């Protein structure tokens, strides 16, 4: 098996707030191998985005990474100097954000914003060469008439076109790792499939590995090789997409799968996981899922001890005290 390209070990991120310390991420482990697509799913507030931001060192004060290691190509990104980290950002690791409406600078032409990404990492490149590169990038993500689109401002682009431009920007320096944080959530449903296709083909062309953050299990099934399910700041189940989806070994994953609306289910019959995501200010004791868990009941270990990940198959782990009951 390949050496991992990216290894996240025991990552913890905290945000002090007026009400107390929010443990947004609390002990995340995640591996990404070269060329592999890892899907990260979970409810809002499960720590998906914060984990992604941590990789690029984009956690804003007063948020702070308090623990862990993020190894990328043998270097711990958390220990890099700001300058060295900037050399990685946008070059070896690039990111596509959720909302293309606000992710572009409104007063700078789109072409120049992509050109900035090129120029920042290829200092020697001349004006004309940068421009040609940007035009080629725009064409490669299916933006029609790149010459004219180069000069246009973000508000002259539609939502889907903006996300295409964002993908062009991310692919500008052929990154080894692409992080896409809910890249289609803010788009019209009709556009989502196009953008996902584009993301897939852009990734396949460049051979980049990818972390795909989403709460859409369908997207994961389509695009990802492996999946990591997050809950309350931790990865609760991870493994090959087929293994996890065919035989989920964590009650939360089961709940997620069950709550997907299906065509065959009768109208009005939406299945939901009871309760709501836990407060990260005061997480429940023991397993953070136990208050909502269908199998925990009133059992002692669920209430008192936090389950550690256990292997339940090749590369398939789950953090549940009673995962055998789900086999």
């Amino acid at each position: 098996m390949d050496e991992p390209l990216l290894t996240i070990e025991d990552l913890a991120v905290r945000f002090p707030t007026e009400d107390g310390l929010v443990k947004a991420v609390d002990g995340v482990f995640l591996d990404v191998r070269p060329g592999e697509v890892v899907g990260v799913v979970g409810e809002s507030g499960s720590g998906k985005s914060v984990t992604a931001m941590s990789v690029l060192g984009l956690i804003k004060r007063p948020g702070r990474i308090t623990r862990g290691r993020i190894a990328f190509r043998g270097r711990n990104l958390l220990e890099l100097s700001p300058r060295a980290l900037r050399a990685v950002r946008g070059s070896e690791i690039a990111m596509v954000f959720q909302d293309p409406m606000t992710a572009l600078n409104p007063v700078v032409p789109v072409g120049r914003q992509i050109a900035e990404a090129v120029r920042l990492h290829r200092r020697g490149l001349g004006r004309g060469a940068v421009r040609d590169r940007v035009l080629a990038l725009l064409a490669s993500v299916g933006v029609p008439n790149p010459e004219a689109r180069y000069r246009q401002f973000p508000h002259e682009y539609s939502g889907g076109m903006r996300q295409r431009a964002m993908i062009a920007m991310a692919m500008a320096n052929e990154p080894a790792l692409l992080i896409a944080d809910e890249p289609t959530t803010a788009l019209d449903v009709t556009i989502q499939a196009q953008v996902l296709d584009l993301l897939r083909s852009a990734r396949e062309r460049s051979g980049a590995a990818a972390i795909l953050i989403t709460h859409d299990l369908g997207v994961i099934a389509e695009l990802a090789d492996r999946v990591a399910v997050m809950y309350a700041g931790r990865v609760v189940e991870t493994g090959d997409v087929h293994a996890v989806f065919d035989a989920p070994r964590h009650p939360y994953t089961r709940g997620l799968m069950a709550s997907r609306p299906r065509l065959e289910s009768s109208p009005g019959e939406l299945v939901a996981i009871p309760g709501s995501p836990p407060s990260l200010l005061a997480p429940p004791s023991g397993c953070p899922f136990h208050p909502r868990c269908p199998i925990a009941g009133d059992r002692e270990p669920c209430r008192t001890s936090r389950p550690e990940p256990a292997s339940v198959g090749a590369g398939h782990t789950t953090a549940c005290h009673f995962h055998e009951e789900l086999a």
Partner: protein
Amino acid sequence: MLTYVARRLGVNVAVLLLISIGVFLLVRAAPGDPVRMMVNPEQLAAGGPDFIARKRAELGLDDPVVVRYFIWLRDALTGDLGYSFVSRRPVVAVLGERIGPTVLLMGTALLLGLLVAVPAGTLAAVRRNSAADYVSAVVGLAVISVPSFFLGIAAIYVFSLTLGWFPSSGMTTPGDGGGADVLAHLVLPAAILALSIAGPFMRYVRGGLIAELGADYIRTAEAKGAGPPRVLLRHALRNALIPLITIIMIYVPQLLAGAVALEQVFAWPGMGQLAISSIGQLDYPVVIGFALFIAVLVLLCNLAADVLYALADPRISLR
């Protein structure tokens, strides 16, 4: 864009007409008799009531107000705002020679104010809740709270009378009047006027920049690998300064009001000084001329704000 400007100018002309009627009526309603002010007291005493009546008729003061307004308007449109009751020179000429010094004072103050406010506001935003932020907030609030004429008097005491660094009044030294001389006279009033606007401008820059620094596109720029100076100057500040255009234009009348007060303190030969003395002497034509000047200035500044905003922000298009 051009049609927009033309339409706005049309609207402005209508507004100006309304203002002219208002100003004309208000000034006519003011107490005091211009004849008594114009004619020298001995003649007045010798001539008696008949003389006053004759003078009133001569000056057209007996005509109905409506007639007087239209006569005044017709003349005004040809650039004739009448004659000053006091100096007997054309109002346009009297005002004209005062515009230069006032514009020089206001322009210098605006420039100085921005040179202080933009860097200070930027620093306060980047280092928010630091000592620098608190100090600039306190100083900013202090200069807003203390009236500028008081600061003017204090500055004259310290820098002119005690230290002797700068002249205390006027625009030139008799017999000199070179650029350096004017500059030396300009320093104190311009600096104090600049302070009065630098306070609020700095707060606007700070607030705007903090909002922009939290925007998603800033995160995008950082994710590209852009360094802090580039993120701050090329991305955040560029966006934060756009609303400042409007703020500056809104502050121009306030700047003029500040200049009026400071021109008194520093005997700066500008429009403010002229306006105050004309009001005291019931010199109606000059007062009306001054009021119209302010009206035109405010209207043009509003128009300029819209046009400049559209030029600076590609999302705005004027139709």
